[in-house]
């Protein structure tokens, strides 16, 4: 009986549509992190940055009723936190792991603090309007493809465009080459006249901006509201996916789709009245992440300078 349900068109359509929706924030955050890590900075603060973006974007949209302004605010708040991360690691040469954790705690607390400060007073919970579909009805009516591809919210399409641009910059331009050079061998890059620190700053900030929008995709895009810890560790999962995607934007994007499927599948299974307790369903994405990490660990070559700071004085 469960098998009948598993292969019914309605179930599959809702599963795949939810897969793309769930993959959205993770994929955008992960592609941003690809830039940061390719330039040599492991930004573990991504979860805090996403939470900041989730709040800031939600607040901006809620107050101004303008989605574009919300996106801009989410982007700049994520970018600002990332700027702090870049300053600590690139300029001050501090330990990247500890700084990332500091940013994570700071961003998590700040999002919660600002939420209480700005919206906490009201008795009715703040809710933003559901994002309307962008494509005409004719497209959305196409069987299978319509509901899966054309009925997503506008933030999902925005993330796809951003990821495409990121892929293009990374793989088809000299900027991408320079980023890779800085992450592989900063000394050599420096000798041929590449400004290592500037590239690292740019990449970390870009990663933070995308992370901010990714957070907004969770709050505004999926839930229409902001809650404490609304991203539920997606920032950390995104970092795991970057390694799974071997530090390539497109591979990382497809990796995120697999994780989106894991989330979507878990939520759909919960409605099945199965004997598995739903707490185990909630665990699924995290166990799945661990499993994928272990299985894809072979032949795993990280950027050589990842996690190490660079200063001209040498060590």
């Amino acid at each position, binding site marked *: 009986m469960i098998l009948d349900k598993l292969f019914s068109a309605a179930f599959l359509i809702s599963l795949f549509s939810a897969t793309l929706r769930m993959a959205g924030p993770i994929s955008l955050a992960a592609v941003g992190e690809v830039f940061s890590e390719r330039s040599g900075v492991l930004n*573990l603060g991504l979860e*805090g940055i996403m939470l900041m973006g989730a709040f800031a974007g939600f607040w901006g949209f809620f107050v101004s009723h303008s989605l574009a302004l919300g996106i801009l605010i989410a982007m700049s708040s994520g970018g600002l936190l990332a700027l*702090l991360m870049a300053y*600590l690691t690139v300029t*001050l*040469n*501090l*330990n990247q*792991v*500890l*700084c*990332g*954790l*500091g*940013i*994570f*705690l*700071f*961003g*998590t*607390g*700040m999002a*919660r*603090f600002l*939420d*209480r*400060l700005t919206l*906490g007073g009201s008795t009715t919970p703040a809710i933003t309007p559901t994002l309307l579909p962008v494509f005409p009805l004719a497209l959305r009516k196409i069987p299978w493809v319509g509901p899966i591809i054309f009925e997503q919210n506008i933030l999902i399409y925005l993330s796809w465009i951003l990821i495409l641009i990121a892929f293009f910059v990374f793989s088809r331009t000299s900027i991408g080459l320079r980023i890779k050079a800085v992450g592989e061998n900063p000394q050599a890059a420096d000798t041929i006249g590449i400004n290592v620190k500037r590239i690292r700053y740019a990449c970390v900030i870009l990663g933070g901006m995308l992370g901010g929008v990714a957070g907004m995709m969770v709050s505004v895009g999926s839930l229409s509201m902001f809650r404490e810890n609304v991203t*539920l*560790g997606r920032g*950390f*999962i995104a*970092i*795991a996916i970057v*390694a799974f995607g071997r530090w390539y934007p497109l591979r990382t994007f497809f990796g995120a789709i697999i994780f989106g499927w894991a989330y979507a599948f878990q939520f759909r299974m919960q409605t099945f009245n199965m004997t598995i*307790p739903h*707490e*185990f369903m*909630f*665990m699924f994405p*995290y*166990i799945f*992440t*661990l499993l994928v*990490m*272990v299985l894809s*660990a072979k032949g*795993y070559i990280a950027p050589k300078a990842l996690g190490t700071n660079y200063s001209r*004085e040498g060590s």
Partner: protein
Amino acid sequence: MLKKFEISFLPISVSVEKVTDLSPLKKILSPLIALILGLLIGAILILLAGSNPLLGYQALYEGTFGSLDSFTEVLIKAIPLVIVGMGIAIAFQASFWNIGGEGQILMGAIMATWIGTMKFLPAPLMLPLILLGSFVAGCLWGSIAGIFKSKFGLNEVIVTIMLNYVAIYLQIYMVRGPLIDKSMPFWPMSEYLPSYAFLPRLLSTTRLHAGLFLAIGVIISAWIILYHLPFGYKIQAIGLNPSAAQYGGINVGWTLILTVGLSGGLAGLVGANEICGVHHRLLDNISAGYGYTAIVVAVLGHLKPLGVLIAGFFFGALIVGADSIKQMATTPAALVLVFQGMILILVLVIDVLFHYHIHVVRKKEKGEST
């Protein structure tokens, strides 16, 4: 390493020298300055929230050191922070970034409750068995991350955080499923442990319990292990340079697994401490973020046993104090989190600044002979 700056119109030259070791005075000063700066920025945030920071900090002081009751509450919060903080400091000394304290505490708490509700166990054996069991549970949970790092080269930060989420949902399941108090099936709590499983109270009027000695014992043993046993030497050698340690004959992989096992075991012990000392049963939110706060405690204490003891005490006071200023419009819980992030960053920044000695020398006048 010496850098010299001269400004043409000023009669001085400034040279900056980088030193590799901090003087003992600076080692004490840097966390202090970080705390003061943190409290100052915190004051600005409280101002932004429309409250008076002076009243806030006064409430914080009175809520922590104002009475015997509140002071013992501080100790009760400091105990878990000191124990987990020490565990995390040990792992950090080996440059193993164990962020999994939260999950390891929960695994210890689940194990403590499971053993504690086995009525057939002889009473005198109960407490030792619980402490041992929770240590082993946290140890095994931590070792997973150690094995994943040593055998597969996975990033331990991500692994331990994923394990935290798994442990959280496991705990949520346990208090609603296998460990639930069957006489109250609608409340997500386990039944109370028998009183012979409690950590004894130290003062009859307060909640202060024997976990205090546990914390002090952990600090002393950590000091012995880290600085007087070969194992501690290996941990520090790996932390400084893993490939050199390997070359020098240390089995890095195995040592790392043992280190994280010890680190997780201490966190697991905290699970038992919270069950047997404070709550006497398993319920949601039993750890209340201790695993993350302990990271800040470890770094603030410069990963040293005595430092962790002092930093843990301070953060215990901060948590209790934040609870006592809840009547203010701001959200202390969120502010404590912001504060933790700031302190973590500030300690690192000030440590780096302290590594630079700045000498200001008067320039010699032209023609002046030496």
